[in-house]
């Protein structure tokens, strides 16, 4: 519970703004990743190359994006 609830939604560069910025940056990073991975796969990148560029395992990137990209009609290379 926030001690002073008016602080919880106040937009003055305090903790509420800083915490909201963290959430917004995470969401922005997810949006950028979705777009970047789709661009890479449409350009013929392999799953291992995309995974290495993102600093994650190829299993992780495949699990996160393969279904979405297939649904979007992206021709996916074998892992």
């Amino acid at each position, binding site marked *: *519970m*926030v001690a002073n*609830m008016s602080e*919880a*939604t*106040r*937009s003055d*560069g305090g903790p*509420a*703004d*800083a*915490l*909201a*910025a963290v*959430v*917004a*940056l995470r*969401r*922005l990073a*997810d*949006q950028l990743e*979705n*777009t970047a991975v789709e661009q890479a796969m449409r350009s013929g990148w392999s799953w291992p190359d995309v995974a290495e560029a993102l600093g994650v395992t190829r299993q992780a990137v495949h699990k996160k994006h393969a*279904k*979405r990209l*297939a*649904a*979007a009609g992206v021709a996916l290379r074998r892992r």
Partner: protein
Amino acid sequence: MAFDKYLKMILDRAAHEATADGATTVEAEHLLLAMAEQSETDVGRFLAGLGLGHVALRTALDRESEQALNSVGVSLDAAAQRRKPDSSSLAGQLGNSVRHALERGLDGLHGAPRPGHLLLGVLQAEVGRVPRALALAGIDRAALIGQVRHALLG
């Protein structure tokens, strides 16, 4: 409408809202957008009557994102970041803000839950995107909660 049917409808719709947002989890703001989007329901009509329809809420949430990012020096057109969700890859996992909203809205009820209780649970959050977006839109959240109790749960 029976509450379980309403909840399922809102959760399904909220998954589309989350996916359009680029979010990996469904959060409380996506429930609120979904409730507003269902304009033929009592809750949807109530929100629209207060000027809190889907477009107005989406605009308020975009402002919240832009303002939060501006506070750390990032400039963004939030609306331009949204994408058209495809139904085969919707965000499916419920975030903690949804669990908290359900707990706040439903825990301790003596009677059967109603759609208004879900809205109440979302609006009663003291922190997070929903109260920040409503504050930025100039909405008196305490008064709004009172109106929900009176109009939908009275």
